[in-house]
């Protein structure tokens, strides 16, 4: 539906976007996720037409729109600041796009009414944006864009100005609207949790590049780079040496006394020096030596009670430090405390070999 082909954007000498290829499928909810300043807004602005790529091309529904102005593209945007027209009422704001198309008054009025119902703004038709709450403005911005029936709706951090509770509510509502209307959404956020809960697919953006594109589970469980592993959730990023191949597994030596098996990926790694990621919650602690593979011993260095989870820093005899996260035990059960000796077990599938950059 939307295709970026080898798109590069320079501001002066600064490379904001470096050779991005992206194919957004029809009807999907795709999220651009990345830290502030990584180029998410710039990517959106090239799709909507406010910025032209320095190199490469932008395609919408099979048509090259690289040089079309924004008002000739069948995409609409929900701006981060909402950008409502302050001199127009809610109703006039929502009907703006249809008035620009010079549709008959009666049709406009009808469609505005249903758009208002869609985002539950009944009763506020005659208000000006200045008289609305943040959440209500958000809905006006949404209705104003949706009423144009765009092929693609672009949303630039639309929820970042809302408080946590309202944000959760709007997340659900956006997702519901997207399913119901079947419109392709390209959604920008720097909030990984928001991205994981809402998206069909996530493109993780870093320094003007797409680091990884995949569904939420793949991004979380199989990060391909250290950046992705660290940005989405927390991760222990460790250097390791491949010391042998055993069946379908590679034996990795992370530190002396810490040797683990990981599934041999296809294609196999070409060097013996590798970087792996282990999520803190994938390290299981036990007081007795477990019988399974992939176990090693360590000492609890620090513990932090965080409510639902218990966060520990552990250290092996050879000096390897790891973060571990465990679900909080009930108050009666034994938890691990500073100074305790523990056995650590990691399932081979929970150790992810990262792409070298």
């Amino acid at each position, binding site marked *: 539906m939307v295709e970026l082909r080898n798109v590069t954007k320079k501001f002066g000498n600064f490379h904001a976007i470096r050779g991005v290829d992206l194919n957004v499928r029809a009807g999907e909810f795709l999220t651009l996720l990345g830290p502030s300043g990584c180029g998410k807004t710039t990517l959106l602005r090239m799709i909507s037409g406010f910025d032209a790529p320095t190199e490469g091309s932008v395609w919408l529904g099979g048509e090259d729109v690289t040089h079309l102005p924004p008002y000739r593209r069948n995409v609409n945007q929900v*701006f981060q600041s909402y950008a*409502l027209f302050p001199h127009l009422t809610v109703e006039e704001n929502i009907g703006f*796009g249809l008035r620009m198309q010079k549709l008959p008054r009666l049709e406009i009025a009808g469609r505005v009414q249903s758009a208002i119902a869609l985002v539950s703004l009944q009763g506020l038709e005659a208000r000006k944006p200045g008289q609305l709450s943040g959440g209500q403005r958000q809905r006006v911005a949404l209705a104003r864009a949706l009423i144009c029936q765009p092929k693609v709706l672009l949303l630039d951090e639309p929820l970042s100005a809302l408080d946590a509770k309202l944000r959760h509510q709007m997340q659900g509502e956006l997702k519901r609207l997207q399913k119901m209307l079947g419109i392709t959404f390209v959604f920008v956020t720097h909030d990984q949790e928001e991205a994981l809960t809402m998206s069909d697919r996530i493109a993780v953006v870093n320094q003007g590049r797409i680091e990884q594109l995949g569904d939420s589970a793949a991004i979380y469980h199989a990060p391909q780079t250290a950046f992705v592993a660290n940005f989405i959730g927390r991760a222990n990023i460790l250097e390791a040496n491949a010391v042998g191949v055993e069946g379908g597994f590679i034996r990795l030596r992370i530190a002396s006394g810490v040797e683990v098996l990981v599934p041999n990926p296809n294609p196999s790694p070409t060097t013996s020096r590798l970087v792996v990621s282990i999520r803190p919650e994938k390290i299981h602690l036990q007081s007795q030596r477990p019988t399974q593979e992939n176990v090693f011993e360590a000492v609890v260095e620090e513990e932090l009670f965080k409510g639902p989870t218990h966060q520990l820093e552990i250290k092996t005899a050879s000096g390897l430090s790891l973060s571990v996260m465990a679900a909080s035990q009930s108050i009666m059960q034994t938890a691990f405390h500073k100074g305790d000796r523990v056995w650590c077990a990691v399932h081979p599938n929970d150790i992810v070999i990262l792409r070298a950059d």
Partner: protein
Amino acid sequence: MQTPLALLQPAHGAARRPGFIGWLLIAPLIAWLVAFVVIPALILLVYSFCQRDELGELVFSFSLENYWRVFGYVHDESGAFAWDPTYLQIFGRSLGCAGLTTILCVLIGYPVAWTLGRAPDSRRNLLLTLVMIPFWTSFLIRTYAWIIILSENGLLNGLLQYSRLISEPFPMLYTPGAVIVGLVYSYLPFMILPIYGSVEKLDNSIVEAALDLGAGPLQAFLNVILPLTRPGVLAGILLVFIPAMGMFAISDLMGGKRVPLIGNVIQDQFSGQARDWPFGSALGMSVVVLFSIAFWLGTRRQPES
């Protein structure tokens, strides 16, 4: 809709009555207004209903004669009313000149203000300074500069003749056109600055939202940009139209005696040969009434807000 005066008020400040300190702070302004605006205006009002004798001295006797003259009715020798629209014509010409000046200032000033307001911060101060530079030299010197440019053997005629576009000097100075050029030149900054103020406040993403929703550049201008910068335009219109209406120096210097405006006539009544203070006062009061109406039209609150 914001009125131009609202530009001068804090955006969301609740209307508060000034306290003692507040009154103390605005006391000089009030004193100034009373001494130099209210009292002279009252004197003018009284004079405008008086008469003058043959020597030009003021005679206190109530009459509407001066206002009749303003509107074109004069007594001929037999004492009957006769129709002489000289002053109405001058009024009309002044309105026309000031109106045309205002329109030209909007047409020239808006794009300039837009460019200024949308320029990157680094360049904006330089551009603003360029708009203000003319104020650094005396108004008279600037007007004489125009005379040098426009006169029969001036710069412009010289250039046109040199480039063989014309063979004879083209009369430019002492024409209505010259007066308009002078007025537009003098008042343009008063149009640019308030519009610039509005443009600068306009959030760029609002303009982008209009384009995003399918408005072409002209539609975006008419439906979003113009309504949102209207307070600046109205303020500019007031700041240009009113002084342009009263201006006499430019029409004097650049129009010669051929293009007298209402300002010249009034000046003539007070310090020139005519020496008719009561009639000058009546003309002055008429202009004040006209301005008041214009001001009321310009700043009236639109019913929509």
